[in-house]
């Protein structure tokens, strides 16, 4: 037992440098979303119109936009909306999807069949199309885009949860536990959930990155909060109308790519150490 733990802890200590960098990036992004005021003193909603379209420089790290607003500040303040909406989406996916998968795996064949078809529908409709329809029904706000993204992710989480539940139920030690008089709840809490949580965690991290992209895509097409909100996708969408100021596109795009890349790196590392 002690040999195994030292081996595990040794592996844990040897985190690859790219993963460390990824954690750093994610930490910065999370800080931007929690305390944007700490990172920039300029106002993201108000600018000096005479300074419009200034290129990146000392005064404005990312340059300014068409109303003279500091782009760096807008990106930092937009992080809250981009990141928190992705978290909302994942929350919905994990909770709703996990619940559906759990019931499907545990309850009888009838529940499994019905829920299975529901999940099939969610998976059969292309993710973006599904999100677009749900957002158009709820209203064009970023929080609704988050809900829509969450609903499109439910199917994936449900499938994984269901597979984990079935796998665990069939495991020999669970049968033994049953025979020893353990109730279904007992099995659920002590065996199924802990085992499932590892794969769900890796999936959640991966889907977090994908949700950021999906919400940005929705914002890009206009299915999100309108200006002066500064969602990354919205910034790019507004920026593309001013080709004379390419930093309006490249700055938020690079921030978004760096974030998702870091999240993906962490997700891959999590899967490897599983």
């Amino acid at each position, binding site marked *: 037992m002690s040999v195994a733990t030292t081996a595990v802890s040794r592996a844990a200590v040897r985190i690859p440098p790219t993963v460390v960098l990824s954690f750093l990036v994610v930490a910065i992004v999370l800080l931007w979303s929690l305390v944007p005021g700490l990172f920039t003193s300029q106002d993201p909603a108000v600018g000096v119109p005479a300074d419009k379209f200034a290129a990146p420089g000392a005064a404005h790290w990312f340059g300014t936009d068409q109303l003279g607003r500091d782009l760096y500040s807008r990106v930092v303040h937009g992080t809250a909306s981009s990141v928190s909406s992705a978290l909302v989406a994942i929350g919905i996916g994990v909770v709703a999807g996990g619940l559906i998968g759990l019931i499907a795996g545990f309850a009888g064949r009838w529940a499994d069949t019905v829920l299975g078809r529901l999940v099939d529908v969610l998976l059969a409709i292309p993710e973006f199309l599904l999100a677009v329809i749900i957002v158009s029904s709820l209203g064009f706000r970023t929080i609704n885009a988050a809900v829509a993204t969450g609903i499109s992710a439910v199917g994936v989480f449900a499938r994984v949860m269901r597979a984990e539940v079935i796998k665990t139920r069939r495991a020999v030690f669970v049968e033994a536990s049953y025979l020893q008089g353990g109730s279904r709840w007992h099995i659920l809490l002590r065996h199924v959930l802990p085992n499932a949580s590892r794969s769900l965690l890796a999936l959640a991290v991966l889907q977090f990155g994908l949700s950021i992209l999906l919400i940005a895509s929705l914002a890009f097409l206009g299915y999100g909060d*309108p*200006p*002066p909100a500064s969602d990354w996708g919205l910034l790019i969408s507004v920026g593309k109308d001013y080709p004379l100021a390419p930093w309006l596109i490249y700055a938020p795009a690079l921030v978004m790519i760096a974030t998702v890349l870091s999240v993906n790196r962490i997700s891959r590392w999590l899967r490897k150490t599983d």
Partner: protein
Amino acid sequence: MPVNTSRAARRLLRTIAGLVTVVALAACAPGGTNTAGGSATPKPGGDITFLIDSLGDTWIPNNSSISSFQGHIWGQVTDKLVYVDENGAVSPWIAQSWEQNADATQFTLHLKQGVTFSDGTPLDAAAVVANLDIWARGDASRGINPIGLFPKTYDHAEAVDASTVKVSFTAPTLGFIPTLGYHGSILISPKTLALPAGEQADLSNDIGSGPYVVASWKEGDSVVLKKRADYNWGPPALNHQGPAYLDSITYKIVAEPSVRTAAVQSHQADVAYNPSPQELSSFKEQGYTTATPRYLGFVNGFAVNTKAAPFDDVRVRQALQHGINRDEIISTVYTPDWLPAKSFIQSNVPGATDHSTDFAYDAAEANRLLDEAGWVKGPDGTRAKNGKPLELTLYPNPYLATSKSVDELIAQQLGKIGFKVTIQAFDVVTYSSRIKVGGVPAYEVTRSFIDAGTVAGVLTDANNGENWFGLGQSDPKLTQLGAAVAGASTVGERDKVLDQLQGYVLQQGYFVPITQIVQRIYLQSPDLHGVSYNGLAYANYYTAWLG
């Protein structure tokens, strides 16, 4: 073998490095050049491409004619009874002359002879009557709407003979003749008008009498028009006889404004619709033609709801007017091609007068008014009274592309005098279902009209009026002025009242003007000449030629 693979790897890395350099360089350099030149006499021939952001929803003529996108196509493919130019002057077209009776309840139209639709049907009095009836009433049994803003006092029309039409109204309707030049009043072949809605929705079935006919079209993509060789009845005001010069016009949808303008700059298209105003001055410097015609209608501004506190206080309304720096809006969001508002109707509307002193930018005056009204500035700059902050929510109008930027700037300006402004933007659908004039404190107006008489219909709720200011009929002076405008039977009589009305509405702070609206902006290749703009700011290609 190891040698081969490392060479392959090195080549791969070099290609990647090259690509990265290209991208980095490309990110810095601007693009687009042009050459000038051309001749001065019109010559026939040539094809132009017009890039537009949308081609509307349906092509049923009645249901689509007032669409600001589809109006372009209807303008080339159909004719109207009268022609209204950019100064609001009405001149003959298919109706060569007309008379009205003393109280403007009966009009007689004398039609030009020899006009035909492109399917051969004659455009005679019977055809005009069929059009008037369906414009006014639509056909609910086939799902066809009446056209927007057609006088509701229409009673009936009759064909006295093949080229005379008598039209009767239930009440004085001075605005009837100019309305015949409005978007909706397009003359369509009676054969088309008899078709079911599903077939009228196919643009190829919609037959007009205009200088162009529809050669082909693809929903959501493009419309191709080609010249009609036997056309010979253009509006005399345009000084051109016979068919159009250009052989064809292709309207193509390109959703991105920057792509549209880039295409014109690289000679892949001739006209780009709705470029971003910010880029107009650089286009002009490069030698391109830009046009920012104003339509006839209301200026861009806010109709204030007097029922919504704190706007029930005239001083707060006046503070709004004086707190907006219109020059800053024009220099930031627009260009000097935009004009500040002088009244609440555009200056090119016959009957518009200059009342700019009533609402000029004066931050000191705005502050004074708010102080007087009891709104005290708090430590963060926002004013409050009895514990309630001075708040305003603005809803950018999705029908005007620059509305969001303008509202953001206004929010900053009003913030300086103590307002707390929030902006809530919606897409077209949500906006039309949720934001109604009278339902929000400040409703942003972008409304065209052909005749100033329309104004009477929005001031109060008399005669099913739109009641823009939430007054009902509680302001007797406004109600009286409105009735006088609606009931006027001569233009001279009406202009006097209109001047009083403009002054009164502005002094009472009911309307907060921003700028004169330019809803249609055109970027055009310098090789295209002879384009004219009508009273609805549509480009007219009947007289245009390439050279």
